[in-house]
């Protein structure tokens, strides 16, 4: 064993390691295995966890190569030199429901309560590219997010909010939504005389959200969804340099069923494909790579999640360096937002979710997240109420102001267990990335349904583990109560459909029909010449064409696709 080890750069002398291994063997022989609680101890994603870790668990660890310093490659210790000593992670609470007038009030409430950024979430029809008055939208208008049909709604949504100072995240999810909604946000900024170069924020814009997560018949074909996503990335690289044009939505992959390795491997495969496409379009890696951003989940396995973030940072740094040879080291820095895992929350005894989400948020903070959203405790029951939103924000503030976990950088580094687990996770992620590569890349695995099956299998395995009791869930498969001690208030979505219908009706009369038609024709012509659609749509929305009209134009041109359903 010791012969294969290179002492050069290693933290340990071979001689010392051999001594430790010998002593560890002795300890293991005495270890009373029969007194253990479980037959096998594993992480949530299935890695074996040993009773004890020692220096022999990371025998070849080379400090300078493998860990290094914050703000420098491989960035495992953090993407900024000062991390939370400079500024703590951004408290970025998701909000959106009903008509834009109502959500505007929630945004102001959250900003006044100390939120530093806004995560604007859109209702289901907006996310799927339909207007509020589309027959298919019936029932869902104003639910799950705010309804936005036109640039007028966008103006209402951000009325009185300093969009040149507050960082705004547009949780557009799907490229078909993003291409319109981000364009409306940009066009509205121009109307308010805020130059696009001054805007800070993020749009989600992940093509897997349209083709793998939340799947429906007759959606955009994977290559089209991918193109729309890339159009926004390219547009921002050329026009809005401080905007993060994509947030690869590992969080949603995890919520859909992925385990921790799949979450990271699939976002990276997606991001690598976007990079290749940007290079093909003539951009240089340093023109856009520093603005690619990621979105991860914070799930139940505390240590696994921290190691997941650390492994992701180191792996990304090395992948970008080796494949694309950037000059700017920032191109190698993986920055990410975290949302606490909704799928881990329970409808039973909902106040327990406050505790769960606090642990999730702690893992995000110890893992070096750039911004965090904490879920409302009532999310397994309804859209978060004002009380649950406020409690979630306070959870973050308690972490930041009272616990002092922010005083030093990457505090768990150097733990034998943490470094071993980080290495193991990285290996598993690399293995999966290679598998996606060998199957022809991310777009191909979406087209042939391999990725759908992989995620569906993981989701089913998770459910089986809960139902067998192998995975304890307090209040669900153990420690149940026959009577709920706390009656959660159920959020009531304000009337939205009638409000939006009336606006659309008025707008279609008021706007110039010629200009609106010309705007849609421009989009169609852009499709024909395979141009960048965002360039055109940022202008089109000013003629007050609606999101549904834009999506229909794009869908009519490119056709539809039926994904494998389950």
């Amino acid at each position: 064993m010791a012969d294969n080890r290179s002492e050069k750069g290693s933290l340990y002398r071979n001689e010392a390691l051999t001594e430790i291994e010998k002593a560890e063997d002795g300890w293991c022989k005495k270890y009373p295995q029969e007194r253990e609680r479980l037959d096998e101890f594993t992480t949530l994603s299935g890695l074996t966890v040993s009773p004890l870790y020692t220096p022999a668990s990371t025998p070849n660890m080379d400090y300078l190569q493998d860990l290094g310093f914050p703000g420098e490659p491989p960035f495992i210790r953090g993407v900024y030199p000062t991390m939370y000593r400079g500024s703590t992670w951004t408290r970025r609470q998701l909000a959106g429901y009903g008509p834009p007038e109502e959500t505007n009030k929630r945004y102001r409430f959250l900003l006044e309560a100390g939120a530093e950024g806004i995560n604007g979430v859109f209702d289901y029809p907006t996310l799927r590219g339909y207007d509020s008055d589309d027959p298919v939208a019936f029932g869902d208008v104003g639910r799950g997010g705010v309804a936005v049909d036109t640039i007028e709604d966008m103006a209402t949504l951000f009325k009185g909010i300093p969009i040149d100072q507050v960082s705004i995240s547009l949780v557009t999810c799907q490229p078909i939504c993003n291409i319109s909604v981000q364009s409306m946000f940009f066009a509205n900024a121009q109307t308010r005389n805020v130059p696009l170069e001054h805007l800070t924020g993020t749009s989600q814009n992940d093509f897997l959200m349209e083709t793998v997560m939340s799947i429906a018949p007759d959606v955009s074909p994977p290559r089209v969804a991918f193109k729309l996503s890339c159009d926004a990335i390219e547009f921002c690289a050329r026009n809005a340099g401080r905007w993060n044009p994509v947030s690869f939505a590992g969080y949603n992959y995890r919520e859909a069923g992925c385990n921790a390795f799949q979450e990271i491997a699939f976002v990276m495969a997606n991001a690598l494909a976007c990079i290749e496409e940007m290079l093909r379009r003539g951009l240089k890696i340093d023109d856009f790579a520093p603005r690619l951003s990621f979105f991860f989940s914070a799930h139940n396995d505390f240590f696994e999640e921290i190691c997941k973030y650390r492994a992701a940072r180191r792996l990304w740094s090395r992948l970008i360096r080796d494949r694309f040879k950037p000059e700017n080291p920032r191109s190698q820095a993986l920055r990410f937002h975290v949302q606490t895992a909704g799928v881990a929350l329970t409808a039973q005894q909902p106040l327990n979710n406050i505790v769960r989400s606090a642990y999730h948020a702690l893992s995000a903070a110890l893992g070096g997240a750039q911004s965090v959203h904490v879920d409302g405790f009532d999310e397994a029951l309804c859209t978060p109420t004002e009380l649950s939103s406020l409690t979630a924000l306070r959870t973050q503030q308690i972490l930041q102001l009272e616990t002092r976990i922010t005083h030093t950088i990457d505090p768990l580094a150097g733990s034998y267990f943490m470094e071993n687990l980080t290495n193991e996770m990285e290996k598993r992620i690399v293995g999966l990335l290679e598998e996606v590569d060998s199957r022809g890349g991310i777009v191909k695995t979406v087209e042939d349904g391999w990725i759908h099956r992989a995620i569906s299998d993981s989701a089913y395995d998770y459910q089986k583990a809960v139902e067998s009791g192998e995975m304890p869930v307090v209040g669900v498969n153990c420690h149940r109560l026959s009577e709920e001690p706390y009656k959660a208030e159920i959020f009531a979505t304000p009337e939205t459909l009638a409000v939006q219908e009336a606006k659309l009706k008025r707008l279609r009369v008021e706007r110039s029909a010629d200009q609106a038609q010309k705007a849609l024709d421009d989009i169609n012509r852009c499709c024909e010449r395979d141009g960048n659609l965002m360039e055109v749509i940022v202008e089109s929305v000013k003629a007050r064409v609606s999101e549904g009209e834009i999506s229909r134009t794009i869908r009519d041109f490119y056709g539809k696709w039926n994904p494998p359903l389950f």
Partner: protein
Amino acid sequence: MSHQKTLRILIAKPGLDGHDRGAKVVARALSNAGMEVIYSGLHQTPELIVNTAIDEDVDAIGLSILSGAHNTIFPRVMALLKEKGVSDILVFGGGTIPKKDWAPLEALGIGKIFTPGADTQEIVTYLQGTRISNTKYNRRIHGR
């Protein structure tokens, strides 16, 4: 048992709500329990759901809703079934449906509602056990 009874179930996601993990897991669990399962994917209008249910001659429709739109969508599905004279298809539900809404939904003739934390085996047992067996099943086995 003279007949090996195979239940046909439509699991449908009405509307544009994107939360489909639960629906897919339930579809798979029912399928593993020996049922024939049709999963619709998202974007289903009540009309589409009812038509599919009739065309596919299903015994039950499971509607999964996590958007809060259940009070709008369930009644529409029930009304359409009634309009088409269908009385032998069981409609049951799943998703984030608050307890206070259960009774009004049950009054419309909707069967059991399964909320987050429900066991898939519970759903299997429910479908195997309830009124489905007497109506549609007999009709299918013994001729129309």
